């Protein structure tokens, strides 16, 4: 199929999960949109809020249990029983973060700074913020605002919505 000549003008990404890979997928797509000159919003909700919670944002983990794609370095299967051992998830997550740094992929907070500097808008979900009893000062300083789902749809109007 031929590529469309019509350019995407605006995207709004919803990040609803807090694992390292889910958050990065949302950040890469949001930042990537700005890199292409596309207007971009990112909306964090439920566990995705960890990515804009100061105490958690730079310590996100990847699941070593219940993650069928999990493999040992080199590609051998990763026995699920290993994943439950203390420290394994932290170790695997640290390895992933190191691997990303080698590829010039920034840590979460710096990635948010990049999106902010690029003119992308960063929002938290009011319902989830209330549910987790978070305060504004617990959250990423340059977050634009905490909004309701209705406000999200207003801001997303005229563009594409991506749910990760």
């Amino acid at each position, binding site marked *: 199929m031929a590529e469309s000549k019509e350019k995407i003008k605006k995207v709004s990404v919803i990040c609803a999960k807090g694992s390292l890979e889910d958050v990065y997928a949302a950040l*890469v797509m949001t*930042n*990537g949109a*700005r*890199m*292409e*000159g596309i207007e971009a919003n990112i909306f964090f909700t439920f566990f995705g809020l960890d990515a804009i919670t100061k105490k958690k944002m730079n310590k996100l983990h990847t699941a070593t249990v219940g993650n069928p794609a999990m493999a040992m370095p080199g590609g051998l299967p990763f026995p699920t029983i290993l994943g439950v051992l203390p420290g394994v998830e932290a170790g695997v997550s640290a390895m992933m973060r190191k691997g990303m740094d080698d*590829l*010039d*992929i*920034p840590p979460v907070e*710096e990635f948010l*700074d*990049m999106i902010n*500097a*690029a*003119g992308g808008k960063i929002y938290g979900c009011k319902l989830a913020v209330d549910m987790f009893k978070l305060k504004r000062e617990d959250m990423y300083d340059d977050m634009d605002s905490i909004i309701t789902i209705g406000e999200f749809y207003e801001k997303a109007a005229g563009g594409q919505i991506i749910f990760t």
Partner: protein
Amino acid sequence: MSQKEIAGVTIDFDESGYLSKFEDWSKEIATALAKENGIDELTLKHWEVIEYIQKEVQNGAALSIRKIGKSGVVDIKEFYNLFPDGPLKKATLISGVPKPSGCV
């Protein structure tokens, strides 16, 4: 590959619209490419960024917005302001270097 006349000379462009050979690049061509991409005037700051990009590419470095933001030449916000609507793509095109292949 295609040929196009720009700033009074005919040069080769690749399929992405980037200069095929850096040797063809000149300040006049950069100015003309900038105009084609909505930048009416290249300021001193633009030239500093262009120089930085050319030097990095000559040294074999892979370019990213993050890297340019840490270069000391411009910060990310300024980079987006100087080359609006796709700063890395536009800045590399005007600098006469290949299109960068990174995702970040």
